[in-house]
């Protein structure tokens, strides 16, 4: 999560939470909440940071800068939209009767 290997950062973050967090970084309302209450907002996304790693005055990078970096972040499970590609194409779903070929969030049993 960071370059601070000597401190204990706990991360329990689902894929949906990771995507939602990334999307939120370009949303003014979310950014405002994160700047005002970093500990609480991070905890909502399964990230627990020790106090010494939370600056007194949080200042997030510009949304446009975040947007640019997010587009380049690699990973087996993309942070932006792609994972739900089929979900957004109901017409193709209808034509080929292809239901949910892409991985979704876990379903309750």
């Amino acid at each position, binding site marked *: 999560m960071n370059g601070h290997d000597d401190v204990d950062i706990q991360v*329990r973050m689902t894929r949906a939470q990771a995507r939602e967090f990334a999307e939120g970084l370009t949303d003014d309302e979310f950014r405002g909440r994160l700047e005002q209450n970093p500990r609480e907002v991070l905890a909502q996304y*399964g990230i627990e940071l020790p106090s010494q790693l939370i600056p007194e005055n949080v200042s997030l*990078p510009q949304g446009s800068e975040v947007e640019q970096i997010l587009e380049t*972040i690699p990973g087996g499970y993309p942070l932006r939209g792609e994972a739900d590609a089929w979900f957004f194409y109901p017409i193709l779903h209808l034509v080929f009767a292809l239901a949910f070929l892409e991985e979704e969030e876990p379903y309750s*049993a």
Partner: protein
Amino acid sequence: MPKVRRTRFLFFYAEDRGFVDVTELLRGTVKPISVQQLYAISILTGQEHPITEADLDALLAIPSDEWLDVSETSQLGEFARNGLIVTDEDALPLAELRQRDQQLDGSAWNVYGALYHSMTRWRDVDVELEERTQVPDELIDEVGRKVVAKGGLPPPHFHGVERALEVRELPMARATGGLYDALAERRTTRLFSTNSSLGERELALLLYYVFGCHGYLELTEGVVGLHRTSPSGGGLHPIEVYPLLVSVEGYDPGIYHYNVERHALELLERLDAPQAAELADEFACGQFYFKSAPALFLLTARFNRTFWKYRHERAYAVVLLDAAHLSQTFYLVCADLGLGSFFTAAVNVANIDARLGIDGFSEGALAVVGCGVPSEEDTFLNPVFEPYVPRQTRA
């Protein structure tokens, strides 16, 4: 002080994920990093739960083969609620999770089959389709182009083996009548005529010739194999069928069970036709067109019947294939009767299980088939395929 035990039905998975360095982020810099997220996957709940390395250590410190006295902590409470450990407590859902653990422990479920089954038990999934039967060709083309632009083309529709030693063309043998006509007529129908019901004779023929018993073989005392018109692993035939009748002449709409021994329908729940159609829609994840079918058939498996003989990693696949064999026979009998038919595995099996009152593991839903008179509407839901003749047609 509760007693706890780690469930044996637990897997761990590590996923490397691109993310941003949060500590840098809070200081005004965005820096991409790779994060490894651990997951604990509980077969008891069918869910994966993100955990930390400390959680993993704590879980592995709890034995799975004996009960451990522990003091209650929020971490253990979360483990218990997520089905990662079981406790001796009687509160729900802890007692239910313990019962499922004991049930699986005492069954012949292979752990890998159980994992797949558990993680694919959809509940309340809805594809949220707009209910339309007409879509302009241009829109279909446009969507197709977008998908190809994003994901590339699929593998080619035909496949030849490049390393073949020799290619020998076969004579174009032809046959007609009976089975061959049914094979030629077999196709998936998604939209059905809402003006037509299914007749009792058609229903009886379908049930008998697809799911009925046509012979038996007593292997030893108490061990009887059945003969259906479709094959089954070990002749055990674990698949049960629950007709969901929406509009069948002489029958109340509702959920029935087909009693194979007596060739009889057992009414489980009486509904009105709109209720039955809505249930069909719910079970089929909102694939709205299927609720136009006058009769649907919920396929379940009594898993322990197959697992009585087969306990290996392929046993679960044997059960799935049994359902698939029956589906094909269903299609062929429907084709012979002049009916349209469909099969879908995109179903909310957990919803079906709950409605049928089955637990999902000793007996659980797998898929749904349905049939009726095809709609006369010219719709992309009932596509017409171009004929193809090998070596004559270019496709």
